[in-house]
């Protein structure tokens, strides 16, 4: 179900009529298509079997490598040159989409191992980057992207600031949520604590 949702989300964002509509404006491109592709990656990674996730865990100590790569991929896709090239060149658009899906997937895999501290680091960095980039777009008298007009650029800029605030508030709100109880939660916790292989459990 999650995998189907991920594929549907990515397909919807990149299929020709939707892609054209979303990429016609900078706001649609950055405020709608980007988050949808990130969400597709996040959902896709949640569909991975827990055995695969457990195998990945040693490669991703405290979730730091995953979050670092996810932030870098997101930053790379927000470079104005990439935004312009994605509009003009379908091949670059596919690369951009793949990078965003990968960023969402990496963040998803790294989220729980990162813990509160790692999550705070990632959310703080992403929010700072979105807000700073958004204010630059909103206040710049010149067009940053050749494919979009100033008014559209300003709307996208303010939208990025809004995303930064919304993301930070959502994460802070999640801190107040009580941990899940019940059999399923205990099973999940047991899987996370379980050794990677039978050999690793020997003294």
């Amino acid at each position: 179900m999650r995998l189907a949702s991920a594929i549907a989300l990515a397909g919807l964002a990149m299929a020709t009529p939707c892609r054209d509509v979303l990429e016609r404006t900078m706001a649609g491109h950055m405020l709608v298509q980007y988050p949808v592709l990130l969400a597709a990656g996040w959902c896709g990674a949640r569909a991975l079997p827990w055995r695969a996730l457990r195998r990945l865990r040693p490669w991703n100590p405290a979730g730091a490598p995953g979050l670092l790569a996810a932030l870098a991929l997101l930053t790379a896709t927000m470079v104005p040159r990439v935004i312009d090239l994605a509009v003009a060149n379908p091949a670059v658009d596919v690369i951009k989409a793949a990078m965003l899906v990968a960023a969402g997937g990496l963040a998803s895999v790294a989220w729980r191992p990162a813990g509160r501290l790692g999550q705070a680091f990632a959310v703080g960095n992403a929010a700072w980057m979105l807000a700073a980039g958004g204010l630059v777009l909103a206040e710049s008298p010149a067009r940053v992207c050749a494919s979009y007009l100033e008014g559209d650029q300003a709307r996208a800029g303010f939208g990025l600031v809004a995303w930064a605030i919304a993301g930070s508030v959502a994460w802070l709100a999640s801190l107040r949520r009580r941990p899940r109880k019940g059999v399923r939660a205990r099973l999940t916790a047991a899987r996370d604590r379980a050794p990677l292989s039978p050999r690793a459990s020997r003294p």
Partner: protein
Amino acid sequence: MTRRAATGVAGTVAATVLAVAALAWSTQGFRVLTLDGARAAAVANRPRPVPSAHVQDADGAAIPIAVPGMVTVVDFVSTACLSVCLAQGSEFALLQDSLGGGATSADRRIRLVTVSFDPDDDASRLRGWAEAQGATAPSWRVGRVAADDRRRLLETFGIVLVRDPVAGWRHNAAFHLVDGGGAVRRIIAANDPVGALRAARLLVDVAPDAGPTERSGRLAADRAAR
């Protein structure tokens, strides 16, 4: 180091490599952030040959984009555009005044060409725009590109057109310096006419009169780099 720790280090290194590679790809090796920066860097590294294109003035006379032995400063406009194209016209007028009808031998080898990309620009609109801006042939010629050549020419120069409900058309304006051999050698920001003039004079100075050979272009580039 335990096997688990080594795997963690390997994962961290892999993530770092991925992060650096992604950022290097998007910024063309940490050099540019915008499309305009990228196209300026691209032609500075490797001059881009201009395709043959039919550009005609209001009287139907052909305007060559490149003339052997001369440096041509090219810009693109729409006569209906009331924003950046008008500003670009004013800056070309400043350049024309600075060149002063060819006071020095170097300045005599610099010419200005304005090309309209707007299919709606007919002869009367071109003539009116040229008169309003004070364009005086032969130092500054104003023409329009033939419909069949428009796309190819704009792609070569890296021009991106956007429909603007207020200004008609918007595009990434700049000063494009074309050498006598017919290659785009430099792209200077639209708000820097002084830099464009300096670059054109430098290009004239380093480019031999014969101009068009690839070898001379390379020599000129080497001398400019030194």
